[in-house]
């Protein structure tokens, strides 16, 4: 194990601090930069950051301890994370991690004695359609194989700088397999925004020049553009694409109507739900449309500041996203005087640091404010008191892209697609056992069977809809439809072929939730651990029906008492699995009577060694 002998020089920390204001809200962003510079957060840096932001060291350490990608011990020159989602596991990720560890001569999770490298597992990195995937020094790597692991080990042992590594390792594909009306081709930047502003330009205002019409100082037309766009959003019946399906227009109008000196528009690109990767594709190929949707939201609700909160796993997109924002500023689509109208709006990027819970909107806001991502109390809602306790619209990446399309093409056009209660189209992230994993756009109402047919996965025995927190459907349910009326979803479809043991998915999901519970409330913090322990007990062949009853009891407890959506949805996959894939459980329940999860006799081993006893009474 590597140990810090001489504390590192703090020059880089000073340089980082100089680029950040003395605002405690900057804490997480500063720590992420320190982590990237030093591959850990040195004690000396904690002191400097605390002093700079005038917060306590305990507060800084609390934040470091919370996020998976921040570490208080040195992780090595090369830090390799292997994605531990079930889809990665099905593609052999577990064996690859062990293989790389062996090649590097390092234990999983430990830094090699010479400080060169460490290998870790991490929650889903959002590359399920091109896994097994991972992250090396912050950059995503895809399609990992043993051959690539051999090259990794060689490059690491030779200390080859990352920019000199083969580019194909870092290749991330869109795999956009099917597009419908929304994402057929990228929309010209600015088109949707102009369309929104022009909506105030009706008959009575025809004579006025466009720029005048939307000039905020001319009052009426300016507001009319925003009001008409909101009406279009109502007509579109656009519902939030993050999974919950709350109507976007209601959220936007509420935010607009609350009296406040400042409002915020926050785009949720945390995308932590394992198996989900549509936001990655949208931000790669449709970044303009997403930013445009945020800008239109700012225009409608009267906000001048947008925040894109994006997960650390997509750090490789940083130069791209910053370039798009910079170009939009140059093109007057962002900034102090958008399209010459005097409308001011700009977007900051806030990075996450590895926390599933940060996808929950109030936890996300806490994280943007630089704290541990812990969910707030349910009331007031963020739309009333969100970021900095001001009215805040938090929407999913896809929702903003869709809103921009509504502004461009009108609400009626949008509502003309999909079903009665689920207007528009939806991006589905297809991964697992199928011939063509990737992104599929369908109008809402498509059946699971049709999706499976298109991606070449019809022989599946199960599909996990909407991630581990969603619903597991069996072959009998493939005619159910993907829409808010039936299977409401963030878009995730993980496919399990007939050869799969569905209990493996349960193990993966319970381990995931155990790791990702934020620890705020006892039912979730303790419950996820107990569930994981019980599932591992069953996996070890020591389970009995009594243990299954205990799992069911804890599931009910979590559902009814957990503080936020994370804890309340943890039991879903267990309940589904016990109901629909009982066979994969029963074959493991070898005893009818309770047996301990641990070996009683082995528990006496230490005592026997210490006393030198080996008589009959010294055994169980």
């Amino acid at each position: 194990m590597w140990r810090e002998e001489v504390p590192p020089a703090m020059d880089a920390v000073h340089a980082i601090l100089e680029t950040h204001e003395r605002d405690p809200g900057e804490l997480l962003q500063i720590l992420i930069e320190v982590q990237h510079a030093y591959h850990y957060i040195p004690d000396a840096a904690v002191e400097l950051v605390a002093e700079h932001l005038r917060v306590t060291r305990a507060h800084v350490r609390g934040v470091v301890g919370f996020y998976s990608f921040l570490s208080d011990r040195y992780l090595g020159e090369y830090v390799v994370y292997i994605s531990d989602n079930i889809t990665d596991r099905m593609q052999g990720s577990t064996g690859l991690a062990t293989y790389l560890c062996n090649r590097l001569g390092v234990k999983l999770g430990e830094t090699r004695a010479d400080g060169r490298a460490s290998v870790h597992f991490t929650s889903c990195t959002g590359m399920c359609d091109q896994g097994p995937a991972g992250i090396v020094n912050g950059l995503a790597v895809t399609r990992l194989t043993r051959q690539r692991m051999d090259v990794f080990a060689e490059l690491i042992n030779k200390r080859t700088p990352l920019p000199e590594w083969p580019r194909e390792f870092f290749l991330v594909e869109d795999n956009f397999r099917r597009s419908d009306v929304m994402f057929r081709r990228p929309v010209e930047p600015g088109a949707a925004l102009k369309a929104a502003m022009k909506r105030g330009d009706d008959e009575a205002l025809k004579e006025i020049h466009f720029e005048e019409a939307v000039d905020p100082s001319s009052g009426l037309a300016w507001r009319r553009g925003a009001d008409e766009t909101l009406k279009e959003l109502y007509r579109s019946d656009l519902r939030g694409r993050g999974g919950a399906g709350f109507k976007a227009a209601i959220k936007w109008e509420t935010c607009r109507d609350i009296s406040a000196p400042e409002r915020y528009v926050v785009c949720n690109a945390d995308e932590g739900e394992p198996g989900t990767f549509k936001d990655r594709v949208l931000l790669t190929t449709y970044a303009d449309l997403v930013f445009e949707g945020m800008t239109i939201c700012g225009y409608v609700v009267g906000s001048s500041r947008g925040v894109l909160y994006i997960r650390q796993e997509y750090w490789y997109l940083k130069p791209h996203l910053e370039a798009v924002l910079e170009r939009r500023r140059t093109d007057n689509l962002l900034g102090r005087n958008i399209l010459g109208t005097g409308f001011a709006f700009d977007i900051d990027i806030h990075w996450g640091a590895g926390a599933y819970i940060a996808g929950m909107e109030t936890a996300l806001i806490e994280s943007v404010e630089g704290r541990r991502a812990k969910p707030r109390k349910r009331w007031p809602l963020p739309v009333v008191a969100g970021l900095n306790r001001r009215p805040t619209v938090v929407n999913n990446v896809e929702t903003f892209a869709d809103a921009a399309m509504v502004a461009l093409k009108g609400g009626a056009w949008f509502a003309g697609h999909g079903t009665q209660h689920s207007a528009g189209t939806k991006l589905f992230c297809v991964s697992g056992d199928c011939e063509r994993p990737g992104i599929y756009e369908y109008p809402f109402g498509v059946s699971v069977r049709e999706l499976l047919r298109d991606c070449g996965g019809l022989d599946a025995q199960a599909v996990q809809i909407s991630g581990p927190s969603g619903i597991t459907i069996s072959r009998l349910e493939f005619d159910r439809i993907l829409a808010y009326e039936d299977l409401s979803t963030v878009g995730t479809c993980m496919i399990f072929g007939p050869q799969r043991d569905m209990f493996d998915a349960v193990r993966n999901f319970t381990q995931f939730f155990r790791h990702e519970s934020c620890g705020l409330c006892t039912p979730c913090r303790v419950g996820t651990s107990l569930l994981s322990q019980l599932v591992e007990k069953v996996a070890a062949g020591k389970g009995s029906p009594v243990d299954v009853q205990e799992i069911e009891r804890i599931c009910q407890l979590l559902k009814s008492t957990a503080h936020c959506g994370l804890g309340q949805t943890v039991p879903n996959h267990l309940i589904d699995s016990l109901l629909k894939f009982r066979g994969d459980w029963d074959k493991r329940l070898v005893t009818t009577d309770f047996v301990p999860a641990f070996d009683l006799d082995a528990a006496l081993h230490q005592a026997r060694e210490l006393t030198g006893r080996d008589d009959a009474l010294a055994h169980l």
Partner: protein
Amino acid sequence: MAKKRKIATCSLAGCFGCHMSLLDIDERIIALLDLAEFDRSPINDIKEIRGMVDIGLIEGGVCNVENVHLLHHFREHCRVLVSVGECAITGGIPSMRNSLSLKACLEESYIRGVGVENAHIPDDPELPLLLDKVRPLHEVVHIDYRVPGCPPSADALWHVLSALVAGRDPHLPPALLKYD
């Protein structure tokens, strides 16, 4: 008159505080004895359960071989087994040693301890060997009910016992689960 229910009790790695609390039901014990009788229990000093009993109450966690045997004996002979108190449910105070190795614990007591003479770790076969970790009861055998508290109040114990004796599922009302 209906046949009396049989109750057995024991303390494993506990402090007998839960038993003291049981005695705190005071004169209600007379009413209890109209409906039930005590089998093996430190209260009457009977050492072993004879035949089957209806209700087994156990305080304390599992820290050594003797605890394991006694717990198994109770599980085999009790129709309903109840974990009584913090130690039985979570391991409690004795389980504070779980963060240390058994070696560290025993050396602290018998080798490096202040005033220790003839320093050696006791190895007499009469002494029950310690488990590497103190376990709550439900990790070793199946437990039917748990009565929380350190100790559970006499009222809570009375509530549970009267329900079990009457053949009902005991459900402690919130007032008996509040400790502040």
